[in-house]
């Protein structure tokens, strides 16, 4: 019986130091995949590694054995002692593993729920696995269904609509002011984690250049280097206001760094091109009165946190809807998986019928004497159609019952009825077994 198993760690189960050990670079994931392929009891495998999670997804017939080998692979890869690793790992099996991978793909398991990158990361992991040919029928189907579930969650719920971090919210706002960031320029005043994150977001969204101003020019050079910005001196801010479209400010200055009159003067020379201030500093850097100017928008940290609060509230409602969609998809996948369970029975049923047909045909042919090719052919057709027609209804029946609650019982009955598992035969059925043996020997 094939089982789907998922072993891994995410931002909830493991601290960042541990995740770092495993999620170092892409080559790591490739090595993990190669190592998993070497394990004989693992049939199909996929390895996902992002900065927030490391997961090994595989199918196996010997779950326990496979699990311990995967754990030792993880230990070897991260050079972590097993006892330290095991406490941070989660293990999901079968339906739970399916549900988990669907939730991950739909970004319901992410640190920032609804963030869109995870789906791309899973797709990449999957394409690596297909390149290495480590996936098969089950994982192929599982991953495709996961992408489908993720798409449904994205289109049918508002989970990815709302920004839930301050820097992300600021960028989303900027998108509602400027259509896109092509050719737009950013100006970062001061430094700080949140401000730099926002600047990085802007860059990744296509802002063409970012200037960095700081009271100490050295610091400006340093920050600018980290994202290929242009360092400018603090005195140049006025001139930069003519160039920049989005200004992120986060200095420790006690007073306003950007004043009403300064912006008012520059707006005329900017020919009223919109200007968006993201003021993350406390106390504020940008005079709130600047917001009263036409085509100028000022959002301070409180405004942005307010938006984030509203969005988080909305997302929780949407998450319930998203979980319902995931559950639907899990059930659909399980139904498919159950039809897969029927396949071996059907195959052995057909094999058995074919064996009997061949044996009986041989027997009859020897007693029938010389036959011409046409007669041989019609005999072949006759026997084939008899076996096929007899088996047709049982096979259809099994397929139909596959995903019903008692599907397994029917499967067992069928296997016993047609005696497909020789090792299960009882003493009572000894006589008939003898016949079976005989016919097989002849064959």
């Amino acid at each position: 019986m094939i089982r789907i198993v998922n072993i891994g760690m995410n931002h909830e189960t493991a601290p960042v130091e541990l995740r770092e050990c495993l999620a170092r670079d892409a080559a790591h994931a490739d090595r993990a995949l190669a190592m998993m392929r070497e394990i004989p009891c693992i049939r199909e495998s996929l390895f996902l590694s992002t900065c927030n999670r490391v997961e090994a997804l595989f199918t196996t017939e010997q779950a326990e054995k496979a699990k311990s080998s995967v754990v030792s692979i993880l230990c070897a890869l991260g050079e972590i002692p097993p006892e330290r690793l095991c406490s941070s790992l989660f293990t999901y099996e079968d339906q739970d593993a399916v549900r988990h991978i669907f939730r991950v793909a739909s970004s319901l398991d992410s640190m920032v729920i609804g963030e869109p990158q995870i789906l791309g990361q899973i797709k990449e992991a999957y394409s690596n696995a297909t390149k290495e040919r480590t996936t098969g029928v089950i994982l192929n189907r599982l991953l495709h269904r996961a992408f489908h579930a993720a798409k449904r969650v994205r289109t049918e719920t508002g989970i990815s609509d709302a920004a839930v971090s301050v820097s992300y919210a600021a960028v989303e706002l900027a998108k509602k002011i400027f259509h896109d960031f092509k050719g737009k320029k950013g100006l970062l005043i001061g430094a700080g984690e949140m401000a730099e994150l926002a600047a990085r977001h802007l860059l990744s969204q296509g802002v063409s250049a970012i200037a960095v101003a700081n009271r100490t020019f050295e610091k400006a050079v340093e920050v600018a280097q980290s994202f290929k910005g242009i360092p400018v001196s603090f005195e140049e801010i006025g001139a930069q206001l003519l160039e920049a479209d989005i200004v992120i400010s986060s200095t420790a200055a006690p007073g306003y760094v950007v004043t009403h009159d300064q912006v008012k003067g520059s707006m005329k020379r900017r020919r009223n091109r919109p200007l968006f201030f993201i003021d993350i500093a406390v106390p504020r850097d940008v005079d709130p009165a600047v917001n009263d100017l036409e085509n100028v928008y000022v959002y301070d940290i409180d405004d942005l946190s307010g938006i984030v609060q509203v969005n988080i509230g909305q997302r929780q409602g949407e998450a319930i809807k998203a979980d319902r969609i995931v559950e639907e998809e899990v059930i659909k996948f399980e139904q498919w998986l159950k039809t897969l369970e029927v396949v071996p029975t059907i195959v052995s049923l057909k094999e058995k019928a074919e064996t009997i047909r061949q044996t009986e045909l041989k027997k009859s042919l020897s007693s029938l004497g010389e036959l011409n090719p046409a007669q041989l052919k019609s005999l072949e057709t006759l026997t084939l159609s008899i076996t096929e027609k007899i088996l047709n209804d049982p096979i259809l029946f099994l397929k139909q019952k596959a995903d019903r609650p008692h599907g397994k019982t029917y499967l067992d009955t069928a296997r016993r009825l047609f005696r497909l598992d020789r090792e299960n035969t009882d003493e009572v059925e000894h006589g008939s077994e003898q016949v079976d043996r005989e016919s097989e020997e002849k064959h």
Partner: protein
Amino acid sequence: MALFLYGCALVLILLATAAFIVYLVRQNKSVYHWAYRLLLAGFAFLTLFVGYEYYALGVAPVLTLKSSLSFFAWTVLLVYVLFHLKFRLMVLGSFVAPVAACLLILSSTLPAGDVTVKPVFRSLWLPVHIGTAFVGNGFFAVTFVAGIMYLIQESQIKKKRLGSLYSRLPSLETLDSINHFALICGFTFMTAGMITGSIYAQYALGSYWRWDPKEVCSLMAWIFYAVLLHERLAVGWRGRRAALLSLFGFLILVLAFVGANLWLSDYHSFRNMGGRPG
């Protein structure tokens, strides 16, 4: 025949409007696709209707307020389809379709009168004058709609109260560029409409300009739009101020269109065109 085409167009456009409003609320893409198809079908029927009227009457069907309004609705939809092809802005339909629907409903409530076509209208200048002027009006209707959308979105962002329309409306820059583009096109067509109109007047009535109330109103609107366009291009006016002014400009146009036709009687009014007053 005309009634059937008109009925189909009206029903389809009303359905499309309803679907567009549902789309605005529910944000369901398939609803949008249906709304757009319905609107296109409605537009096709309206085109057939206008074409049929033209054919039946022998002159451009703009001699009564009733037929002018449906012709106006047609140009608004025409301009919408052009904008859709250029900007692919889904939400625009939710704002334009109601305008077209209102025009059609207004038109349908007016009684159809018998029209006696005076020989002066049997001129190729009439459809040229009317066509350019009305397409210009269609563009201005889009500046009006985009202006309203801009003002809604801008006040949400400015006041930091991000309501339910915030996520549904496009960015300020997009709305402003629609407004700008529609203004340029509208102004070009309006200028062409006025020039062809005066040539037509010279040809039909013997003078280029007669200070008819409609002409005066249109001239006012033209000057207003000229100033707005100049300020946009030369000084860089944009955003809220430009949006507000495009609303005012359109109101002057509406006054020129309805007011001058109905209350101020001169040769531009439908009363004197041979149709009964609407």
